[in-house]
């Protein structure tokens, strides 16, 4: 699995120089969060402590959904770019020629996507906390845990379907069409858990969502590792 880290490091180092994935992702994410917050009545969600907000019922509920939809939309930009770096110049062939297990190729790409998601969240989460006036200390440990579980599945699914959509016409259209329906359990779980945190419900009462998300992570990582060679090999 040393090769997995080599491959991910290759992507991240390249991105550190080229800056063509993370900055657009983050900017797009910010724009989405901003667009969503425009729909809240002024002052909604600005209560000093987590809890249901009187007078703007559901805005805290919705906030979780908006956060994850923004992350997902921004994330998909990164997944697509990350996949196409191997497609351009047929670089995937160079990797396939080397004695590397296709599962390591998958894991390397997924690890890079995983890092891009954290970069995105590192910017979006603080902004989000700021917009909704929730004391960050109360929210942070819980939301990091939710993000960790969600990021594993998102990165793996993004890698699998990102690679798959390299081999069709209209690839940037096809990828979301394939990806969004299948990741519903993951996104719904992350969104429910986040909403529960925002409305003061905590994570304990919703812990079954973690099991579901964990099952999704397991399934997508296992299938991705086994099936990746069927996608990238001629």
């Amino acid at each position, binding site marked *: 699995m040393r090769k997995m880290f*080599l491959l991910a490091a*290759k992507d991240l180092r*390249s*991105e550190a*120089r080229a800056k063509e994935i993370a900055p657009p992702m983050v900017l797009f994410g910010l724009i989405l969060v901003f667009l969503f917050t425009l729909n809240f009545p002024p002052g909604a969600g600005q209560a000093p402590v987590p809890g249901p907000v009187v007078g703007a019922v559901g805005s805290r509920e919705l906030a979780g959904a908006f956060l994850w939809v923004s992350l997902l939309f921004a994330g998909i930009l990164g997944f697509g770019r990350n996949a196409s770096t191997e497609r351009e110049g047929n670089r995937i062939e*160079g*990797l396939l*020629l*080397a*004695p590397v297990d296709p599962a390591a190729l998958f894991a390397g790409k997924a690890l890079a996507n995983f890092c891009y998601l954290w970069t995105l969240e590192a910017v979006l989460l603080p902004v989000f906390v700021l917009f909704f006036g929730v004391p960050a200390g109360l929210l942070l440990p819980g939301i990091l845990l939710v993000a960790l579980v969600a990021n594993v599945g998102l990165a793996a699914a993004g890698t699998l379907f990102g690679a798959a959509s390299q081999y069709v016409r209209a690839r940037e259209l096809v990828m979301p069409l394939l990806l969004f329906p299948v990741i519903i359990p993951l996104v719904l779980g992350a969104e429910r858990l986040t909403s529960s945190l925002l409305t003061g419900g905590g994570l304990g009462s919703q812990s079954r969502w973690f099991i579901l998300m964990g099952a999704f992570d397991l399934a997508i990582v296992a299938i991705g590792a086994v099936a990746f060679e069927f996608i990238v090999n001629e």
Partner: protein
Amino acid sequence: MIEIRRLTRRFGSARALSGIDLDIPTGETVVIFGHNGSGKTTLIKLIAGLLRPTSGVVLVDGKPPRETRGRLGFLGHDLYLYPHLSVSENLVLFARLYDVGAAEAAEALEAVGMSHKKDALVHTLSQGEGQRVALARAVLHDPDLLLVDEPFSGLDETSAAALPAVLKREGRTLVVATHDTERGKAIADRIVVLENGRISAA
């Protein structure tokens, strides 16, 4: 070393190769001549295991090519280099993927005469320089079987003249596809001519 039997490859309904039979013993240098569209590239990629046969078989040491890929070197039209990584970062990455060290990467770079550019980012290289780095990438693990597609194109006189020394090695099987008759003949032990996906002379 290489056995090819009744090898056919179609792309959609277009046939790139039709029923090729070819044996290449270990250590031989075979040069494949042919015009554009004669099926040279397809044949090379089939031997490398990058394409699957529509029918027929390719065996390298009695096994499917994908199983012996660690001992195979390949240089095609594409460089397989990452533009935002430096020359040595690219080569060290591939060296590690082939389970050899950074020393072998440096050696290969020396052999193609590109050591002075080792810290340059690949996207800043000229086409010929990129081609030479790609060649270093293809030989850094000292493969027993080396497949090269049009190695002379894009190289200046000096580099092209230095090429055979890098490609050839005692005991290495070398397959070169080219339309450069003169340079090809100079290195060949045997010549195969492809025409419309068939071997017309061998």
